[in-house]
């Protein structure tokens, strides 16, 4: 159901197109109707028409997302199958995602319709995105099911879509306000506010602001025993230099026009963070600090004219990173990086037959990076993306095919520019309902994608390699999905799916931490062969009135092996930090005003370097998180209290070698909503 809501709110015009397919409504509708349609879909989700995606998707949204013991988008993504989150620990620690072992840089991250970029290192720190204003997170293996999308979106191997809350006003409402106060372990203080105002019948504005402050101090423990079972050492220390002070402010304007809509967003994130660094012998504290200022403005406009729909997007982003190493024992570093991005996109869709649509999109992007470093290359990148796509929705069959042509030109200062790169990346998706009921679907896809080496990969002073080849991935996927919504019966909703996949990564570029989180050693790992299984299941039971129980589970098997060179001592070994087995289970119960959520995450044994030998072995970890919520409506004000206990059994674990994670910790959230 969440999928439908996403589609409805983000793309009302597409919904209109769907309506047209059914032929139920032939008369052109007024903008107000569109808005009303959105409203009703937002409020009464279950009654909406169920559209099955042709592309495998996982969604977390609404109340389920709120109760999931997650502070950031990265925390929530741990509940998706096929996803590994690299977490350096604590509130301020960097968190990146890797989907199906293809690597962080193959995962696109889209924030309200426009992809977030980082031409410098290609990694989006999802720990910077709090869930405070995020209403839904979805993960597509490949592109989104709609073909009306920017060309660039057709190019990533997997995409995380984050959607912020869109104002929805009932008749007579003129504003909404929500205040949130969160505090907890690590001296966390995290107040936030959201104000939504209806400016006109079809125009609304929202302002969201948040402040996050934490000392980042937490206890961690390292313990070893001898083979005889005697205690060798057992030491508990406090994580230092992991503090964070961050603000986020976001302004949104939403409007609806006749057969269309527009959206404008201004975003600013400011933070000062300590970089806690690796814990190694004799070093328990480091002196690295990072100041980030990430600002962008973006706008989108969508309109339907007869059978033709056009979507225009534009964005300008400015990222400033100030990195300082104050450690007396190390080289003093004080560097300022400035990244700029300009992006514009035109996506166009035409409906040829009620069951057949085609689209064409063109995007242009410019990236520039400047740093006050000696002999810095000052690279500029001009990227052009051109895509064509078609979608067929004929009776029980759904097909989508797309092709994207990318042409990239880099210009660097004082040196010869590397050769231009151009790549064609096709994709074909199919879904089929073999049974008369639409509950059961078979699906398959083949997709090729590539990523350009980042500016750091290519031009970074100490480790850049301008001869790096782009990295390509070919994905093959086949799966089944059973999805039934049965209203208010005992088993009210059930969903289960299994996908098997085979990915081949060529010329893979792998980053290893070089002591400082911000800097890496580049490796061209070569060829990786990935075979995996993703299984998801969800069931909602309604045993009695006012009681709803939801179980959600996912399991991932991955065999991702390095097949570069038989003479390597890690030939056919599992690549670093990819567990063979991982999974999660979530139980959620809601009884009247009281909610309980229990979640369990398991990440199996991994190796922290390429060779699968004992000296590189990393223990499995599994944590239990639990939360309780209580809703208290007082007249028009909705009050809510949430208590979260994370790592309930206080397991000592590292996600990344020598970056210890917190033991048991708490959070309390109080929310008032008008």
């Amino acid at each position, binding site marked *: 159901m969440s999928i439908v809501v996403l589609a409805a709110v983000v793309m009302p015009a597409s919904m209109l197109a769907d309506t047209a397919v059914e032929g139920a409504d032939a008369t052109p509708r007024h903008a107000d109707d569109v808005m009303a349609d959105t409203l009703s879909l937002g409020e009464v989700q279950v009654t909406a028409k169920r559209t099955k995606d042709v592309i495998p998707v996982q969604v977390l949204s609404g109340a389920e997302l709120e109760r999931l013991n997650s502070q950031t988008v990265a925390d929530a993504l741990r509940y998706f199958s096929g996803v590994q989150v690299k977490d350096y620990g604590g509130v301020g620690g960097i968190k990146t995602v890797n989907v199906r072992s293809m690597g962080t840089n193959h995962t696109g991250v889209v924030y309200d319709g426009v992809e977030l970029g980082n031409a410098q290192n290609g990694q989006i720190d999802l720990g910077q995105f709090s869930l405070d204003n995020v209403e839904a997170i979805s993960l597509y293996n490949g592109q989104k099911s709609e073909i009306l999308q920017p060309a660039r979106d057709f190019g990533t191997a997997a995409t995380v879509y984050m959607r912020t809350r869109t104002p929805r006003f009932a008749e007579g409402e003129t504003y909404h306000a929500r205040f949130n106060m969160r505090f907890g372990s690590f001296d966390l203080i995290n107040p936030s506010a959201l104000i939504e105002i209806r400016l006109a019948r079809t125009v609304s504005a929202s302002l969201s602001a948040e402040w996050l402050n934490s000392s980042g101090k937490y206890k961690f423990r*390292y*313990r*070893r*025993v001898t*083979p005889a079972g005697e205690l*060798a*050492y057992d*030491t508990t220390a406090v994580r230092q230099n992991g503090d964070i002070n961050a603000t986020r402010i976001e302004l949104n304007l939403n409007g609806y026009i006749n057969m269309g809509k527009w959206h404008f967003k201004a975003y600013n994130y400011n933070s000062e963070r300590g970089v806690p*660094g*690796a*814990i*190694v*012998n*004799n*070093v328990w504290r480091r002196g690295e600090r990072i100041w980030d200022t990430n600002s962008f403005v973006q706008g989108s406009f969508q309109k339907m004219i007869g059978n033709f729909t056009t979507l225009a997007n534009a964005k300008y982003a400015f990222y400033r990173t100030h990195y300082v190493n104050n450690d*007396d*024992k*190390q*080289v*003093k570093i004080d560097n300022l990086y400035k990244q700029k991005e300009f992006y514009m996109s035109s996506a166009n869709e035409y409906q040829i037959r009620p069951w057949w649509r085609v689209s064409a999109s063109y995007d242009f992007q410019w990236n520039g990076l400047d740093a006050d470093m*000696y*002999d810095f290359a000052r690279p500029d990148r001009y990227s052009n993306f051109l895509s064509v796509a078609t979608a067929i929705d004929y009776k029980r069959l759904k097909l989508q095919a797309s092709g994207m042509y990318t042409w990239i030109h880099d210009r660097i200062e004082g040196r010869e520019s590397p050769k231009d790169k151009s790549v064609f990346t096709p994709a074909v998706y199919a879904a089929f309902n073999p049974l008369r009921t639409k509950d059961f679907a078979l699906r398959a896809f083949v997709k090729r994608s590539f990523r350009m080496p980042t500016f750091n990969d290519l031009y970074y002073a100490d480790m850049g390699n*301008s*001869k790096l080849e782009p990295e390509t991935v070919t994905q093959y996927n086949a799966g089944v999905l059973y999805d*039934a919504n*049965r209203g208010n019966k005992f*088993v009210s909703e*059930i969903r*289960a799916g299994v996908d098997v996949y085979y990915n081949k990564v060529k010329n893979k570029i792998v980053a*290893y*931490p*070089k*002591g*400082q989180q911000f800097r890496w*050693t580049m*490796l061209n790992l070569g060829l990786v062969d990935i075979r995996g299984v993703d*299984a998801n*299941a969800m*069931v909602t039971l309604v045993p009695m009135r006012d009681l709803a129980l939801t179980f959600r*589970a996912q*399991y991932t098997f991955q065999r991702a092996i390095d097949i570069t060179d038989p*003479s*390597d*001592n890690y030939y056919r070994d599992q690549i670093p930090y990819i567990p063979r*087995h991982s*999974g999660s289970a979530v139980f959620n119960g809601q009884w009247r005003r009281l909610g309980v959520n229990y979640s369990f995450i*398991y990440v*199996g044994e991994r190796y*922290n*370097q*390429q*060779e699968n030998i*004992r*000296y590189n072995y990393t*223990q*499995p970890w*599994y944590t239990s998180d639990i939360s309780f919520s209580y809703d208290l409506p007082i007249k028009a004000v909705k009050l809510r209290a949430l208590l979260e206990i994370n790592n309930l059994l206080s*397991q000592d674990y590292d996600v990344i*070698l*020598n970056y210890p994670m917190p033991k048991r910790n708490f959070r309390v959230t109080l929310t008032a909503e008008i």
Partner: protein
Amino acid sequence: MKTTASRIASLLLAAVLSTIIFSSCRTEPEVVPSSSVNVGDRQLGKYRGFYLLNEGNMGSNKCTLDYYDYEEGIYYRNIYAERNPSVVMELGDVGNDMAVYDGRLYIVVNCSHKVEVLDARTAVRIGQVDIPNCRFIKFVGDKAYVSSYVGPVEIGANSPKGAIYEFDLATLRVTRTCTVGYQPEQMAVVDGKIYVANSGGYNPADYDRTVSVVDIASMTQLTQIEVGINLYGVQLDSWGRMWVSSRGDYKGVESCLYLLEKQEGDDYYKPVGKYDTPVSAMAIDGSELYYLADAWSEITMAATHGYGILDLRTLQLTGANFITDGTEAAIKQPYGLAVNDDNGDIFVMDAKNYVSSGTLYCFDHYGVRKWSVTTGDIPRAITFVPR
């Protein structure tokens, strides 16, 4: 429909339960054990064996110690944690230098900012000396001298100069320090003076070009001798000549080797010759100076490897390759170099891709491979243990 739904529900439950049951659980984290391999090359000369120090990638805390026992012919890998199980976080991060002196083994662990002191026979810990960003070690009498990137803070200086730290071998306490040039590396001790090569590697815009001369008695810098940019290695040969390597700037200025001599009437050594060959590591055995001609070019973005010999009698580069049996084709990244002055065996340490186990190759005096063995990550230095 109901049956389908409940069947799927029970399947789902079964899947979850079996995942939990079959997934492997955590065990008590054990101290990493050593491993051993029987090499069979037994030697009954003046050495009992040798230690090999593995650097470990920065941040990995995988500086490890291996030992080859000449009496047993057995190579022991990763012995430190087993011999010293109670040391928290083991040997440390990025081993840089190692030496045996007066029955003790001293290990300079760069990113753990310490010199680890072990019993040379048992590898059991005696203590440690905290020295920030320490690089190399030398001994004179009852004192050790350690080069360090971090000198005392000077007011007005843009970046701190390096220093030589003196510590007392009995108390394991730092006794004196002396500021030298930028980012000092290897040292030689001669005539009561320490000659230390200053690299200036932290500032590629303006590399240091000097060798500092430190008077041990007064622990003061007497002078800085202008030699060349980005200096690194320092070795003395048996004729009392000093060999100093420069790593170049990895771009226009190539890596090379300088010869320094002290002429009649001079107070200090001064450069008298320059050899246009890249030198990344060197080892002297009698009349031969072996070197790894490993150079990196920013222009071609590729490494070149060579295994050269400099004849110390004729002072000529022989142009010969000290590996004579074609083994060099298997070596991916020559990194460490050592020679056994007792039997003439030459050791080449292959660091591969720096993030996987390396290989130690042992060649006889004629450059024919005798044996090879897997080491820890980034094998860097060898030190022999006298009988």
